[in-house]
């Protein structure tokens, strides 16, 4: 059962990554695409809590950092998604998560994720953008993520809930 959970989580991240780099650029606004990896991490956080989500965020971020066409310093998306997993995991509730909480969590997670990534770039002097571009990217990415939330989050959360070990709550 544990192996199945790991395989499912890995498959979700791979599908998210491919959607993000190969499919959605065709409908992107100025190159900004919805961050599917972040949505998967948020879904995991709301179902399984911060520890699992942070670990998943690390591996999802590592894939974003290493899979082509990425060419930034590795570990930047990993750090961003680890923090996203942790922050979103704090929003987990014992009962079924209300839709408004899910949307608010995605919005906060998107803001935190893109900002942490951009800040790590500033700290490392790697791929720095102007302040205007930065604000625009963070805002548009947030809108994209919130827009895609009703399409992605319920399905992913249901899948992860079904695979949850019995008595975990």
């Amino acid at each position, binding site marked *: 059962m544990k192996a199945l959970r790991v395989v499912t989580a890995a498959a979700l991240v791979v599908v998210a990554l491919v959607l993000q780099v190969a499919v959605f650029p065709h409908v992107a606004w100025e190159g900004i695409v919805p961050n599917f990896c972040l949505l998967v991490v948020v879904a995991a956080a709301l179902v399984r809590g911060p520890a699992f989500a*942070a670990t998943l965020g690390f591996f999802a971020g590592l894939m974003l950092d290493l899979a082509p066409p990425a060419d930034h310093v590795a570990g930047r998306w990993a750090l961003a998604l680890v923090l996203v997993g942790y922050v979103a995991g704090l929003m987990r509730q014992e009962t079924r998560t209300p839709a408004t909480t899910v949307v608010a969590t995605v919005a906060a997670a998107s803001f935190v994720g893109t900002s942490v990534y951009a800040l790590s770039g500033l700290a490392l002097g790697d791929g720095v953008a102007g302040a205007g571009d930065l604000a625009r990217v963070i805002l548009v990415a947030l809108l994209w993520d919130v827009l895609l939330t009703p399409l992605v989050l319920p399905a992913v959360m249901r899948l992860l809930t079904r695979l949850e070990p019995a008595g975990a709550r």
Partner: protein
Amino acid sequence: MRPSRPRTPRLLRGYRPLRPGPDSFDQRAERIRLRSRMIALVLACLTLMALDHHPGAGSPLEPAREAMGSVFGPVESGTSTVVRPVTAIGGWFTSKRSLQHDIAALQSENARLKSQQATEQYQHNQLAEFQGLTSAADALGRALVPAHVVAYGPAQSFSRTVTIDAGSDAGVQPDQTVLNDDGLVGRVLRVTPTTATVLLIVDTESVVGGRVGASMKVGFLRGRGGLGDHGVLDLQLVDQAAAPAKGDTIVTWGSQGGAPYVSGVPIGRVTAVYASLRESSHRAVIQPYVDFGALDLVGVVVPSGTHSDRGVIEADGSLQ
């Protein structure tokens, strides 16, 4: 005086809730576990960043990048092949087939004329300076490997890179020039057997040697990393007294041995010139000819006679 709390024996302090609320030993242990896991993960991220501080040939993470590339490259290529007909549907609905055909023909004609016009002045100068001969011989020794762009780096990553579906099996090597029918696209950063990662010239890390077609002055073009259609380049001439005129065409200067950039590829047009009084130099803004928001078919410049798994377009236009 502060109200005094009921004293807890020192030995029991770790096992009893210090503040009121539903806090139990289990939750405390879980919190400690979570904290140590978070510390481990963040440290792992920082270690990765330190190891990979300069991504490129010398980085210890390059083998991992290559492995990920050879796994993900084919997935991206496959997905892109499936998606391409779907993304073409939009255009199919809005215009009839014949109209579309006409547009394509006119566009290619336009691109040909544009590049001709763009490079005419430059070529004229080259001939006048007897550079044309060597350069033409140089150009004759090159061929193009055609490739499709299959994946785009998200703008959230603040780096402008794409994946193309030609790799070392097709004869593509790092530090080769990538162009399309409009002009210079970028250079190859790294290759896997089936795919290659291309750094676009609008990326902030990209520096291209450029030459003003009208005056033959040389300079360096740096990307500004702008989004979508706002991708512009900054040109700073080596001769600080010289100023390019608005509308001048910039072509590549060319590197030794044609790597990473071959010479004479049109890059863009000067749209604005700013004079910096303090440094008594000029900075020009270049609008690239290539539309980086809609890249599809590109060509990689390879030495003539390269062994490839697909048709290679030779310099005289023949397919091999």
